[in-house]
């Protein structure tokens, strides 16, 4: 599917097209179920108010974007590890779901920078003789560091907060109600459609005797997408009728039950201080 999230284990599965598709679709569902289970545990981040976590994530992201020294990024990464440890999120999880996939994608982009960015030569590659510049090394470290920090904190938020709480937090922070409702429904229907697609490929797999040829596999994907499109249309009409029959007239009401405590404000203060600290140290 994507450059980042599903590289770590998604596309290496061998087998025919239907098997690979079922495997890929199931992995996304497992990813989401894992996140739900993780967010129910007791840990430092799990106990914080979701609104504070969302605001703090934005503050840390801006700190990472403003950082101009690999050392600052390394400290931020250390902070992510520490927070993960205090929130029962293991290093292995951070490594598998954030670091490895970001490294695989960003690393491919960052490595050529070592040779392509002109500047003072540090050393040359032994056999090829390509010169590695100081500026190139610095630039690659910044790129990789920022991507790793941002991905780690985003993962920490998602692993420590149920999706519904993220949505509620967005709503309490002034995100328009319709957008929040659309995001919530989209998330729900992602799983409905994932399951539908998975069942379609599973049904197909049970009727296939030999691996499909390239042409046949393409026809299979196109017709499955077509069926899914038709089902999506049907689903949207059904959902609309169901909503109207339950009294929906264009207004959406959400329940609010968040309460902030002293430690939430301390966490927010620390997070908001980070970008300022980084700008101050660079100045």
């Amino acid at each position: 599917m994507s450059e980042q999230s599903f590289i770590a284990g998604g596309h290496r599965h061998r087998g025919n097209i239907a098997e690979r598709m079922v495997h890929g679709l199931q992995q996304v569902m497992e990813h989401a179920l894992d996140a739900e289970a993780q967010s129910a545990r007791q840990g430092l981040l799990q106990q914080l108010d979701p609104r504070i976590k969302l605001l703090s994530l934005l503050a840390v992201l801006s700190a990472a974007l403003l950082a101009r020294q690999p050392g600052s990024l390394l400290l931020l990464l250390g902070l992510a590890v520490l927070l993960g440890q205090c929130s029962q999120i293991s290093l292995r999880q951070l490594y598998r779901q954030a670091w490895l996939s970001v490294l695989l994608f960003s690393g491919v982009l960052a490595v050529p920078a070592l040779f392509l960015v002109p500047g003072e030569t540090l050393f040359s590659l032994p056999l090829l003789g390509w010169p590695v510049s100081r500026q190139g090394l610095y630039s690659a470290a910044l790129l990789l560091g920022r991507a790793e920090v941002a991905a780690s904190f985003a993962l920490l938020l998602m692993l420590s907060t149920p999706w519904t709480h993220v949505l509620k937090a967005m709503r309490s922070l002034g995100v328009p109600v319709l957008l929040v409702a659309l995001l919530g429904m989209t998330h729900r229907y992602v799983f409905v459609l994932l399951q539908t697609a998975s069942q379609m490929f599973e049904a197909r797999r049970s009727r296939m005797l030999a691996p499909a040829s390239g042409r046949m596999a393409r026809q299979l994907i196109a017709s499955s997408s077509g069926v899914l499109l038709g089902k999506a249309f049907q689903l949207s009409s059904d959902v609309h009728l169901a909503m109207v029959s339950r009294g929906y007239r264009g207004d959406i009401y959400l329940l609010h039950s968040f309460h902030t405590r002293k430690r939430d404000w301390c966490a927010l203060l620390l997070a908001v201080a980070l970008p300022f600290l980084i700008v101050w140290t660079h100045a």
Partner: protein
Amino acid sequence: MHIPDGYLSPSTCALAYAVALPFWLVAYQRAKRLLHTRLVPLFAVFSAFCFVIMMFNLPLPGGTSGHAVGMAIVSIVLGPWASIIAVSLALLIQALFFGDGGISSFGANSLNMAVVGSLVAWAVYRLLSAGASLSSRRRVLAAGAAGYLAINAAALLTAIEFGVQPMLFHDASGTPLYAPYPLSVAVPAMMIGHLSFAGMAEMLLTAGLVAYLQRSQPELLAGQAGIGEQSGSRSRSARQLWYGLAGLMILSPLGLLAAGTAWGEWAAEDFADPSSRQQIIQASGLHALPQAAPEGLARLAGLWSAPFPDYAPAFIHSAGFGYVLSALFGAGLILLSLLLLSQLAGKRGLPQ
């Protein structure tokens, strides 16, 4: 094509959000006016569809596989405005929930794939399938071309966003602070992959889907599903013009790729500057050049002083950023004047 956090500078991210915002607002307003409450489940379900379609890995000739984004098929079935919202929502879920694409770069990702991708797909499909019957083969070809061009337009814009970073954001020693490659590296790197595999995946999937829908559910291709189809034909031709203009506006930073001054566009002072003189002589087939600018040229050149000389306002110290800003400003002015003209023409044409 999902840009992660940290590849674009904070100001580029803010600019991308600012450019995408009017498209989101217009898309939402248009859809809301036409569909009322039905749009809520429609957008949610189609965003989910886009999300899932991005996981359908299509086996490609040559033994590889690629996945489509789905903006072309959603644009064809629902219209470009619904597609902008559906693809943006899918991207937001991916960024927030699956760490795919950054949160700071969500504006840029939406601009590339949801806005530009949907508009290009819709314009190409409408242009190539104009007047074709629902079951005609031309519709399949038009859908394929729409998918191919849409994903490549999005990739080109992504490459430009990457490519302008080292020009605009570097430290005192010249180290790039964000994406490190200039346009000369970023554009080929992005385009080779998209012109071949990803483009083919989007093309095959969109064309295959339209061929499938022609046989099984032709009503989805008839525009009954779309939310942008109800308005009359008068606004339709105008709308195509708008899309063309939006496309040109977005592609305008391509001018940055061309180095040097265009032939025949020399300023009076270029005649006196030794390096510029050399360039002019080289470009003019080594013909002799007068020592000073021709008198008439020098006199007329001083008549009007442009607020943005050489596409770089004085307060901006980067020529590259000045160029992009000038392009946006210029295109914005053109769009604004056209909007005013069309408003006036519209009022005059309406029965009182």
